[in-house]
């Protein structure tokens, strides 16, 4: 098994699927000639040519809408958003058109589009480029949202997304692009809607997604070493569909839960997870569910403060100790 980066894993997934299905098209701003704003699509133009790898103008509502229309006729576009923050100018296309068309047509039409790109803060780029819209988008029935945290999951989830017959929005993280991990060369997918227990433990369940998984794993190590606490870390991987069983199974074992995400707290993904736990595992709880999210403000520019605004290992450890009290 090769050790490759998260970025390379995404590229490998696209290459596999471009080879597997001639209807797969990669489209987005700077994806072809420029080799990708974050080099995720590097080399694909050379390998597959301009019909399959298409540069678009800066025109998100236009080209995302175009991709949705094309997907209705059987094309399988994989659209890159330079940042998910830019999805906001294409919201009508992403939500109203892609998310509703199957429903409103009584099942006559489906929309197998993939939209992917980074959705993260922490890169010192200010509020407009640091949005994490997974909760906003996942709150629309008709849409699927996945947030891979590791190279293995990035490849497996993107391949599953491209093969999926519904709109799947893949939210990546620029800070993770260089993270390396073991990724099989052979064909595999990570089914959408299956969480992954990234660390096994007995005293506390931490539920996280995206980069918060990495933060939580580091916190778990400190909790074990310095406080003698055994922490289980559940990586959601997919926001909608949500693997409720894996979350509940872990909470039934540890009886305590801490939810960590890089979203702002109000109506974040973990608001839903907290509801789920109290609703379906109330009698298992030995302490209230706690959350760690970004401090509730637009993303601050100042890097020193931004690092404090987002969930850090220290904050996760401190909050975990409160749950364990």
């Amino acid at each position, binding site marked *: 098994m090769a050790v490759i980066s998260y970025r390379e894993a995404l590229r490998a997934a696209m290459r596999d699927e471009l080879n597997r299905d001639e209807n797969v098209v990669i489209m987005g701003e700077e994806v072809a000639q420029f080799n990708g704003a974050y080099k995720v699509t590097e080399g694909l133009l050379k390998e597959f040519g301009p019909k399959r790898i298409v540069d678009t103008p800066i*025109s998100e509502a236009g080209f995302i809408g175009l991709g949705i229309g094309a997907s209705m006729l059987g094309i399988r576009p994989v659209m890159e958003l330079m940042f998910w923050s830019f999805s906001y100018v294409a919201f009508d296309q992403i939500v109203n058109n892609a998310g509703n068309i*199957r429903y409103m047509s009584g099942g006559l039409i489906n929309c197998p589009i993939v939209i992917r790109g980074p959705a993260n803060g922490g890169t010192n780029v200010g509020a407009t480029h640091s949005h994490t819209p997974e909760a906003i988008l996942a709150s629309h029935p008709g849409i699927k949202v996945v947030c891979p945290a590791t190279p293995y999951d990035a490849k497996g989830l993107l391949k599953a997304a491209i093969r999926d017959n519904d709109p799947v929005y893949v939210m990546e993280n620029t800070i993770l692009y260089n993270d390396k991990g073991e990724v099989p060369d052979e064909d595999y997918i990570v089914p959408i809607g299956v969480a992954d227990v990234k660390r096994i433990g007995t005293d506390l369940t931490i539920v996280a997604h995206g980069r918060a998984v990495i933060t939580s794993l580091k916190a778990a190590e400190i909790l074990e070493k310095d406080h003698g606490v055994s922490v289980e870390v559940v990586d959601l991987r997919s926001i909608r569909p949500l693997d409720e069983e894996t979350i509940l199974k872990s909470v039934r074992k540890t009886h305590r839960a801490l939810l960590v995400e890089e979203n702002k707290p109000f109506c974040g993904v973990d608001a839903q997870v907290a509801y789920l736990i109290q609703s379906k595992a109330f009698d298992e709880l030995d302490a209230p569910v706690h959350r760690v999210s970004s401090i509730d403000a637009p993303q601050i520019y100042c890097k020193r403060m931004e690092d404090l605004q987002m969930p850090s290992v220290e904050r996760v450890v401190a909050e975990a100790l409160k749950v364990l009290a």
Partner: protein
Amino acid sequence: MAKPAVLTHPESLKHPAGPSAYAKDPVNASMTKEAKIALYTKMARIRHFEQRCIRIYQQGKIGGFLHLYVGQEAVAAGTISLLGKNDHIITGYRDHGHGLMVGMGMNECMAELTGKVTGCSQGKGGSMHYFAPDKNYWGGHGIVGGQAPLGTGLAYAVKYQGLKGSCLTYMGDGAVNQGAVHEAYNLASLWDLPVIFVVENNGYSMGTSQERSTAHPGCLAKRAEGYNMAWDVINGHDVYEVRAKTALALKRAHEESKPTVLEIFTYRYFGHSMADPDKTYREKEEIKTYRDKKDPVLLFEQELLREKVLTPELSQTINEAAMAEADKAAIFADESPDPTLADITKHIYWEEDNRGPKTTSRGTIIFE
């Protein structure tokens, strides 16, 4: 508010009534007698279907919005009558006429309006959201201008698949100021996509006349020049003219894979929707002038009577049959069952409706 002026939308009235100058255009001259009668029949069916809807709406059986097409029939009829198997159609929320033109049945259309499970979208779409992908009809879209990028994408798919086809992407005159439309124009021209943007200009974006909504150099279609696209204007009261000029745009799409903007002057007799009191922004006299002098169904009937294709008797038979068909559809819609509670959560995800070992999704996707 500006005082409503009589005839705020006079462009189409400049065209004289009387025999169509386009009757001899090859695309019309080559029509058989049967084809002409069929086209007239389709226009009459749209007219009577829509008029029947008014009563059902007033009885409270049609919920929400109802945007009528009465007065604009020649646009859908003329353009769609030219299409072949790789030509696609997408439009905004004034979508009943297009649906009937592509061959949707009155029953499924009427039942959709009353929210019944026998409706074309099983009661999930409603008036603004008709779909018939088997007939190349991709809706029926509720947000003004939102369908323009989708239509461009359908044209992209046709081209990608190497087919000689097109996508007729309809919108109203109110849509031309939406950003998504301009983005679609740009992409269509930039990538040489076989899309025809049909601006059905009925003079009003809801209650705002074109003069009060749109900065333009004389006609809306001319904006195409800014995107290096071909354009034309059409008198939408003359179905022959609609056909003749649309045929040129289709040829451009099929032969050269190039887009076109067509602005078709037309007029709606009823409000923007049924909830529109329809008297704050235009005078009754204006509506009457159009009804009396420019009615597309009436003008085509007269044309065909002159050509001796139609007889008054045949016309009466056609209209009575359309009325009877609409009445039957009303009864069908009335008697059809509602969707069930369980139906609410169907047709959201393909993978969920078809869950099996091969589908990619697991987990909870519909939440309590």
